[in-house]
């Protein structure tokens, strides 16, 4: 970690005595105060610390909500209404928690696209990146189980659809689904275990975030120029980035507050205010917005229209259903191993004239997938979804590996000062 930072000297003898025996304060000082960060980080680098703050907010609001919630099929829905109507500030806590999940995903998705644009996943930061993808997976599991807890129609049917994904696994699929449910359908045992795991997983995320930061501080943050930095390119995290992060946080909290206070149900689905009914599926099941791209990929895998040629997979025992599940998990697997799919040595897209455009195509592709995931799967929507799915995989499996070989990157600057001060740097060209 930040080995070149000297230990802090404590004026207080008590602190010195404690830190001698438990070096927690000096460790925190080195990692979060003196930590040398690149001096050219732009605002996209705010989203890492924002994600950490969102995790903390979700844990705090979640713990207090759990004090009023009842994980039982007969009481869950009513206990959520009890929180909304009777518990002091219950409405605020629940809206902050429910919208907080969306905010957490917004922040994390921007954080991920930041990494993709500036090549933050490249050597020597591969494990840092992979830990991040694991955090994403854990977040998805946590958010999914949290959405089940209010036991509304979308909770119940979302849980049914997603747990049924596992039935696509050959041979052991059905026993696994029964095991996940603790019965023959989503029912009280399912709700109970989801509550237990929804409470556990954020702490697992917390632990992986710790590893994520450990790996980050091994080589230090990447930067918009993407070249390796020397000591003179860095400034201490405090006060420079604590202030910058606080400013970003303020802006972000205004955005967050708008949803809590003016559009608390905008990101939710009205059907979830109908108590769960196992005998009636809502006409249009949609997951929360942050799952829509993955849901679109899942639904696009039918051996019809654009994917008719894939019907040969059925001969190998891969049904369209299994293919959908594989494609959905495959889309995240692509992210997990992107460090090796991208063969270019240049990190920042600033110096990759073609990748710069390809990156934005991927962003557009993900927006299209998000839209498709929220639509009723009519013929036209399926066409668009299949093209978007195909392009997603082409991006990672074909374009990224080839581009590294074919693209001619722009010359990299010798230092991060160069793009700002010109080729000859500070000495020859003083700033006017």
């Amino acid at each position: 970690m930040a080995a070149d930072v000297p230990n802090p000297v404590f004026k207080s003898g008590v602190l010195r005595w404690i830190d001698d025996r438990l070096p927690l304060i000096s460790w925190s000082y080195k990692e979060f105060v003196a930590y040398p960060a690149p001096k050219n980080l732009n605002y996209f680098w705010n989203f890492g610390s924002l994600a950490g703050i969102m995790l903390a907010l979700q844990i705090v609001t979640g713990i207090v909500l759990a004090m009023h919630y009842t994980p039982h099929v007969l009481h869950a829905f009513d206990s959520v209404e009890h929180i909304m109507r009777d518990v002091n500030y219950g409405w605020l806590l629940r809206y902050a928690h429910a919208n907080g999940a969306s905010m957490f995903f917004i922040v994390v998705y921007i954080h991920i696209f930041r990494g993709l644009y500036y090549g933050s996943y490249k050597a020597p930061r591969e494990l840092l990146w992979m830990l991040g993808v694991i955090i994403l997976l854990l977040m998805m599991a946590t958010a999914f189980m949290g959405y089940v807890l209010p036991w509304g129609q979308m909770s119940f049917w979302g849980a049914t659809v997603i747990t049924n994904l596992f039935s696509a696994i050959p041979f052991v699929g059905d026993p696994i689904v029964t095991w996940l449910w603790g019965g023959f359908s989503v029912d009280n045992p399912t709700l109970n275990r989801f509550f237990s795991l929804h409470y556990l997983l954020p702490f697992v995320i917390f632990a992986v975030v710790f590893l994520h930061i450990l790996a980050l501080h091994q080589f230090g943050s990447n930067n918009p120029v993407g070249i390796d930095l020397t000591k003179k390119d860095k400034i201490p995290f405090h006060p420079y980035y604590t202030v910058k992060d606080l400013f970003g946080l303020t802006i972000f909290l205004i955005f967050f507050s708008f949803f809590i206070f003016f559009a608390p149900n905008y990101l939710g689905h009205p059907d979830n205010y109908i108590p769960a009914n196992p005998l009636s599926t809502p006409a249009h099941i949609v997951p929360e917005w942050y799952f829509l791209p993955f849901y679109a990929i899942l639904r696009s895998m039918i051996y019809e229209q654009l994917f008719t040629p894939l019907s040969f997979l059925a001969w190998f025992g891969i049904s369209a259903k299994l293919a959908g599940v594989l494609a959905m998990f495959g889309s995240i697997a692509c992210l997990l191993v992107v460090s090796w799919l991208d063969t270019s040595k240049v990190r920042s897209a600033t110096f990759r004239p073609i990748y710069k455009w390809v990156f934005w195509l991927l962003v557009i592709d993900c927006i299209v997938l998000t839209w498709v995931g929220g639509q009723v799967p009519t013929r036209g929507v399926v066409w668009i979804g299949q093209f978007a799915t195909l392009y997603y995989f082409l991006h990672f499996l074909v374009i990224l590996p080839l581009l590294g070989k074919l693209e001619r990157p722009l010359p990299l600057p010798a230092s991060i000062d160069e793009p700002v001060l010109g080729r000859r740097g500070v000495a020859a060209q003083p700033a006017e």
Partner: protein
Amino acid sequence: MADTANPTSTPSGGTTRRDFLDLVTWSTLAVGTAAVVWPLIDQMNPSADVLALSSIEVDLSQVPVGQAVTVKWRGKPVFIRHRTEEEIKEAEAVPLGELRDPQTDEQRVKKPEWLVVIGVCTHLGCVPLGNKPGEPRGDYGGWFCPCHGSHYDTSGRIRKGPAPLNLTVPDYAFLTDTSVRIG
């Protein structure tokens, strides 16, 4: 393995007393770990009260031709449809080659006028529409799953969309002409 305990064995002889101890230690550890972990995993399987769910009996005398009822069995909906003559003919006339999950209509019913299937889409477990009057029945006159657009025919067989299998036929028996026991 009997001679592994022989104290005179040397490393050059292949096995030693230490190898034997290693083997015993690791196997005990493996079995012990499995014995500890299994209850932690198996506790998530259906409990005795869930497994003890009884079968149900349904009176069919109130279901007119062309209509259907939904009953709840093991937490899931079961569709019982009183099929019309055309629906039966339509179901019987389909060539097996056209089917994704080939089954004749005969294999799926006990009495042709009554079709009994579990009302859970074999794709991802939604309840298909079409059991109530006015609901869409899909392109093949059976059921239509709103979640991902699977179409089932008048025999509950998958015809179009992402679902891989026909609607499951549960164990059932006719007690009288108008009464059936499911489970």
